[in-house]
């Protein structure tokens, strides 16, 4: 409750700031963001995700503790910082969410449809995947991004992901790079990271997933891409699709060396 009042106060301050000059608006937004950082509800998702990780689930009654998400079966700490990567057992480049689905199918015996039933949470609908993502990513806090991208399939994913990043299309001629290919751009009052530059790419990638205050949900990286493409006026990006993983490979490798620090909290 105290947190809600704090948020309301911050929002009110923001509204007041709109009457002030532009520079002070930006300063007030910074204050609002700092206020948000004080206590992050994503902790609830992380705790639920850890429970799910350890539960015996599915027809095969298996937990995720034998699931290899990048650093060997059951290793959670640091695993997110090496993803996406090539996995020999599936013969595919996979990101975290793809890998969780793979383990639900191969280890726990779910069908892909069952595994991907609720990929994003919403009002009255909890997503186990979002909770698992929060738990796994939260276990990489403080560790530097270290995506190898050396296996031929990883190199291919990176190269294709780069073309997807610059692919202009749709009725608005938008590409990812339209908003994220230059320095110091803003859409309305929202700062846009230049994802083709190291410092911005690191700052952006290492702060996803995030608890979105405006949505009351922890949003995963797959969700981030899905909703970017919606606003780009593209068709609907399918969860854990090859293009989503290739683009993630491009963005994750560009963030190498950045210290991972998520789930974060964003407006």
């Amino acid at each position, binding site marked *: 409750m105290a947190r809600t009042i704090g948020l309301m106060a911050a929002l009110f301050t923001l509204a007041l700031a709109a009457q002030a000059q532009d520079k002070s608006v930006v300063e007030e937004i910074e204050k609002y963001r700092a206020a948000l950082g004080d206590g992050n509800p994503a902790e609830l998702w992380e705790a639920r995700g850890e429970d799910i990780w350890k539960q015996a689930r599915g027809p095969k009654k298996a937990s995720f503790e034998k699931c290899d998400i990048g650093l060997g079966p059951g290793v959670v700490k640091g695993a997110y910082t090496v993803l996406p990567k090539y996995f020999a057992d599936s013969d595919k480049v996979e990101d975290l969410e793809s890998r969780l689905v793979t383990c639900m199918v191969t280890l726990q015996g779910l069908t892909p449809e069952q595994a991907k039933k609720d990929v994003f949470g919403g009002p009255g609908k909890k997503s186990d995947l979002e909770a698992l993502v929060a738990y796994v990513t939260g276990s990489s806090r403080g560790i530097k991004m270290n995506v190898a991208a050396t296996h031929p399939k990883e190199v291919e994913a990176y190269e294709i992901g780069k073309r997807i990043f610059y692919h202009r299309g*749709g009725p608005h001629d938008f590409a990812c790079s339209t908003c994220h290919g230059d320095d110091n751009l803003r859409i309305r009052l929202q700062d846009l990271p230049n994802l083709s530059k190291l410092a911005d790419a690191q700052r952006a990638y290492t702060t996803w997933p995030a608890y979105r205050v405006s949505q009351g949900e922890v949003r995963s990286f797959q969700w981030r891409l899905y909703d970017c493409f919606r606003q780009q006026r593209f068709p609907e990006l399918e969860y854990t699709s090859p293009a*989503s993983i290739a683009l993630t490979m491009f963005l994750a490798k560009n963030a190498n060396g950045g210290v991972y620090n998520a789930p974060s909290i964003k407006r």
Partner: protein
Amino acid sequence: MKKIIGTVVVLGLIAAGCASTYVSEEQREAQALAMMKASFKVNGQATLDRLDQDDMQKMCSRYHGDNKMPKDVGDKLEKDQQALIKYPADGKYLGDWKSGERIAQSGVGKQFSDNPANPNGANCYACHQLSKAELAYGTIGPSLYNFAKVRGYTPQMQKYAYGKVYNSQAFSACSSMPRFGHSGILTEAQIKDVVALLMDPESPVNK
């Protein structure tokens, strides 16, 4: 003889090896498009053909950053896009600036989450400063505050503004700005309203 055949086989393998490691830019673009086609699904008005590219989209995707577009390619692109502009048959470019302001504020339209029965917006403020009163503007495009006050309230400038909103690529190859008329985002009447927002002496843009 055997030696020759052996050499030929080895050379053939080397050639095959090179062919499989070197991938041209065109091949990468084709791979990206094929992968996207397999990774997106239709949702309402957002159909898969939106992933296909016309010449402008293709060329402007290829050239970016240090890989600058050759001048002749850019010149041809602008000329081709110029030819696609349809100016109003009645020769009038100015509509209602108040309606133009609403269109400039609205960000809806063409997303799969939008109802296609509702009118589209242009969301000008997402990228441009326009009126002094609206502080929540973006910086992807230049400030348009005092647009006509600075440039003059001339018929030529009205026509230029109409053409620019209709098809930005005709004036600046690979501009980030959507081709609002060309791509059917705004109707002719809506573009006139937006032009009025820029050009009408009574518009807050020129105050």
